[in-house]
């Protein structure tokens, strides 16, 4: 079994590398590779200050590592799902499940196969945390990180399987979450009780110096009930935070024990789950049969509802661009749950209330966080929200078969991410304005000036968003062979290079689009100021005019791209 997994992993790696080397004959991959390689060289090999991953061996390193690990585990137990942790590809299903292998061997195979990506993740993480100093990279730290990742993967799998098992036993929804919360409350209470007793000593030690403080905190973590509770986490991170290879070797057995216990837990859970799944499938079959025979008294099975709770209705009449916008919006929001939004708002408010102190009110922090979120959505949204031609280009045959003009297709495709991201950005802007509406100052501009800024920001963000999304879609239509289409994003050095080039092209396009807009906006703003409008309102007016110019440019671009869509031949796109 191990030999087979190693063979498959090895051959897959060799063949994938060969394929990648062979495709370097195409300029798009070669140039992408060069740019990607330059980027990684700059990232990893340029001289930097700072201790990098070596800093984890400092006194506070273990505490931070245990804290991070605890947070990840807690988050999994709080928000994790009962979805199966082992997803097999079609080929794996076809070859493994029909092969003369036990289920345990299949699981072992899957676990083994996942180790190579985990090792690469550990290596990459170690490189990133090494502050770009490849020379400072230590193999034992990579192995230490690999151990942490592998155990975490198994822990996540175990938690998912436990939840799946509880679900099958009828313990679902809030009952399951309540149980989890009670368990976590118990853990938190134990941690608090342990720390409360030792807190004066820890504070006093920190007053003497950080080294003494960390030592006191570490001592508390290693003793009493807290020591027992945190032992698996401490044992797991101990090799990672070791100061030397010798210390690493001495700490390795305990970490391997934690890994082994997780392995046994997952394998046993999986086997039990398989049996339970078979039993459940038999129950379902019996109920269906009963229903067919008219015995409806027996509980029927509810059909799985694939649609999310957020329903967007499509009017039966209207333009085709609206239908395409609806289609993409439905797809993009399918997995969005109202409770996610509620949770996000609650987190912003709770975080602000916790951090608020002195003259800095909680609402001020809400405004700052919202503005930060809005800025992130504006910059990263057009790159990550691919609910446009980047996603639909795979369906070019279908789109071209519809009785729709190319300009309408492009308009609908571009409108989807602009509308969705725009809603997020505008909500953030309006929320930030509302949060500071009652703020008298003097730290902030007057309410009227803030209103002027809001009036300027709303169209300006929409215009920037339009340009950024348009550039992405234009690239799909004009240079289809250069852009990765579909939901799965390409990976690798070449793909990184291609993305860097795309980002650079977006910035150039933004600058080009802004030249006439800035001239027109500038003239309008200066003129308005000359006739007596206040400086801020004159700027707002100028931005409004400039945004109008950008929207006009966008409309022209959509019309042009629509023509390209009409002429494009699906057979000649050579996407990939």
């Amino acid at each position, binding site marked *: 079994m191990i030999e087979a997994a190693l063979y498959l992993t090895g051959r897959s790696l060799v063949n994938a590398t060969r394929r990648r080397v062979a495709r370097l004959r195409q300029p798009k991959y070669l140039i992408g590779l060069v740019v990607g390689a330059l980027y990684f060289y700059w990232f990893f090999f340029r001289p930097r200050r700072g201790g990098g991953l070596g800093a984890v061996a400092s006194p506070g390193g273990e505490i931070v590592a245990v804290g991070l690990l605890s947070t990840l585990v807690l988050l999994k137990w709080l928000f994790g799902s009962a979805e199966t942790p082992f997803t097999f590809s079609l080929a794996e299903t076809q070859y493994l499940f029909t092969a003369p292998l036990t289920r345990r061997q299949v699981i072992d195979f899957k676990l083994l196969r996942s180790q190579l990506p985990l090792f690469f993740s550990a290596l990459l993480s170690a490189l990133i945390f090494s502050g770009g100093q490849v020379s400072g990279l230590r193999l034992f730290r990579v192995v230490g990180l690999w151990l942490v990742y592998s155990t975490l993967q198994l822990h996540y799998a175990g938690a998912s399987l436990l939840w799946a098992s509880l679900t099958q036993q009828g313990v679902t929804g809030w009952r399951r979450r309540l149980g989890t919360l009670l368990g976590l409350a118990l853990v938190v209470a134990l941690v608090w009780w342990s720390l409360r007793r030792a807190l004066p000593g820890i504070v006093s030690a920190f007053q003497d110096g950080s080294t003494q403080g960390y030592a006191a905190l570490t001592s508390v973590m290693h003793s009493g009930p807290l020591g027992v509770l945190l032992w698996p986490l401490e044992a797991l991170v101990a090799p990672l935070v070791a100061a030397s290879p010798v210390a690493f070797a001495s700490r390795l057995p305990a970490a391997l024990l934690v890994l082994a216990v997780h392995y046994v837990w997952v394998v046993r859970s999986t086997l039990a789950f398989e049996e339970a799944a078979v039993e459940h499938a038999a129950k379902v079959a019996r109920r269906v049969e009963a229903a067919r025979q008219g015995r409806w008294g027996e509980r029927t099975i509810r*059909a*799985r*509802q*694939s*649609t999310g709770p957020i329903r967007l209705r*499509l*009017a*039966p*009449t*209207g333009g*085709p661009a*609206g*239908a395409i916008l*609806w*289609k993409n919006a*439905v*797809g*993009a929001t*399918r997995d969005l749950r109202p409770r996610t939004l509620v949770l996000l708002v609650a987190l912003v408010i709770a975080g602000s209330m916790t951090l608020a102190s002195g003259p800095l009110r909680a609402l001020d922090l809400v405004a700052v966080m919202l503005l930060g979120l809005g800025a992130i959505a504006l910059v990263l949204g057009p790159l990550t929200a691919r609910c446009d031609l980047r996603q*639909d280009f795979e*369906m070019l*045959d*279908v789109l*071209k*078969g*519809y*009785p*729709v*003009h190319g300009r309408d297709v492009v308009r609908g495709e571009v409108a989807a991410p602009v509308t969705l991201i725009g809603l997020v950005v505008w909500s953030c802007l309006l929320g930030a304005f509302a949060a500071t509406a009652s703020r008298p100052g003097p730290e902030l501009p007057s309410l009227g000036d803030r209103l002027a800024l809001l009036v300027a920001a709303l169209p300006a963000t929409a215009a920037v968003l339009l340009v950024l999304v348009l550039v992405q879609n234009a690239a799909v239509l004009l240079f289809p062979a250069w852009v990765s289409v579909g*939901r799965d994003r390409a990976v690798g050095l070449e793909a990184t290079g291609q993305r860097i080039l795309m980002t650079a092209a977006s910035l150039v396009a933004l600058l080009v689009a802004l030249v006439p807009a800035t001239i027109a906006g500038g003239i309008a703003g200066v003129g308005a100021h000359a006739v007596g409008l206040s400086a801020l309102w004159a700027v707002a007016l100028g931005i409004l005019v400039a945004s109008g110019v950008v929207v006009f440019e966008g409309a022209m671009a959509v019309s042009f791209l629509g023509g390209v869509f*009409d*002429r494009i*031949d*699906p*057979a*000649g796109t050579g996407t990939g």
Partner: protein
Amino acid sequence: MIEVQGLTKSYGSVAAVCDLSFSVAPGEVLGLVGPNGAGKTTTLRSLAGIVRPGGGTIRVGGHDMERDPVAAKRVLAFMPDEPHLFDYLTVEEHLRFTARLYQVTDVERRLPALLQELELSEKAKALPGELSRGMKQKLVIGCGLLHDPTALLFDEPLTGLDPSGIRRMKQTIRERARQGAAVVLSSHLLHLVEEICTRVLIMQRGRKVALGTIEEILTERPDLRGRSLEDIFLTLTGT
């Protein structure tokens, strides 16, 4: 009515379709047959307005596909061999989306009956990933027939269907032709072509080898009389 005159399409130096001319009258079912690589799918994709021909004209329902593609596509339905569906739209949403694009205003009223007819009522809220191949095929056909097209293009229409689905598909094709639709059907299943097509177009290497009813083809090649369509096909294409 489908009229094709001098259709030519090349991919680089390879001529996929070469100077192809034919027409399909309302109520007629034309079987498009030929060995792999004969240009059948390219012909259908050109008729559907998906690929642009290198030369020649295509008219569907009196509308020129080059000059007025929107009007031509409005009366057309193309059912490809592989059911392409948006993986983020449910069955019901696919039908609503298609209805809006083809301006079918009474979709709300027709939806339950249509889902029932397609045997997809239970799967109305399912995403394509949860459907079998046959169900996907049915959904594509449902979307295609939603706007009552007068020109129908089928590429391997029986692929993935169960026996009852096959029977229903044949009935649908015959029924639509009886109602006046012009149908082009591409298939390797010669018995299907023999069973439901009124005329046959045999292609090889992008060119027309024979066109007409079986009787008309036999009149031109009396040496093939008494032989099955399979034998006629193999002799004419030299495969």
